């Protein structure tokens, strides 16, 4: 399942369904809204580009790390502290591939997928700067 959605993601169900034949290891990455002195965050996506980009990353990870199954669910909209932002579930025969595949996917998402986060604070908001950005992420 590759999705960009407002609804929460059922990680337990994804983990259950990730048990494909040959699976010896499942690695789950669950990105959470962190309490950085914020009220909530708002996520925005260029969905028509972001979704195929996620699909491409999943395909690349599958080929590169012999994965047996990949789920990527990225949420958009307003999310409270403690809510899931992103769930990545990968299955592989062995743990090395599962960890490496999971890590590859999150690093690729961070730099390639057009999704943005704004932290909503008491005194306004602040766009989170991209990790590989030259921008300063200044308060607007």
């Amino acid at each position, binding site marked *: 399942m590759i999705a960009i959605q407002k609804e929460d993601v059922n990680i337990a169900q994804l983990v259950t369904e990730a048990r494909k034949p040959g699976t010896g290891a499942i690695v789950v990455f669950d990105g959470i809204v962190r309490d950085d002195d914020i009220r909530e965050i708002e996520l925005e996506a*260029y969905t028509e580009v*972001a979704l195929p980009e996620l699909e491409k990353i999943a395909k690349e990870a599958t080929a590169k790390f012999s994965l047996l199954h990949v789920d990527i669910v*990225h949420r958009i909209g307003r999310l409270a502290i403690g809510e899931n932002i992103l769930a990545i579930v990968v299955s592989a025969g062995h743990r090395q591939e599962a960890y490496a595949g999971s890590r590859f996917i999150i690093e690729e998402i961070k730099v390639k*997928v057009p999704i*943005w*986060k704004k932290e909503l604070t008491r005194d306004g908001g602040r766009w989170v700067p*991209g990790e590989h950005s030259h921008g300063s992420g200044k308060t607007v």
Partner: protein
Amino acid sequence: MTVRIRFFARFRELLGAESMAGFKDGTNIADLVRSVTEKNREGYNAIFDESGNFREFVILMQNGKRVDVSDAGRTGISDGDEIAVFPPVAGG
């Protein structure tokens, strides 16, 4: 010809989510973005530097494909194109 221009994140807040505009043949992406933003001082300044060049971090896409800002001045547009302008991504 008619082209759709979309802005995201901080640029969207300053310039609106999208606009449709008519252009004459031979227009390039840099001209297009300049013409759509020039009446909005803050929006223009977020995207262009003092010399009128794209700021280094600005990302451009033409129909979902990345176009380097340094190539935008010589990349032509076609009727029905979708041009997207956004700051560095920060998903995950």
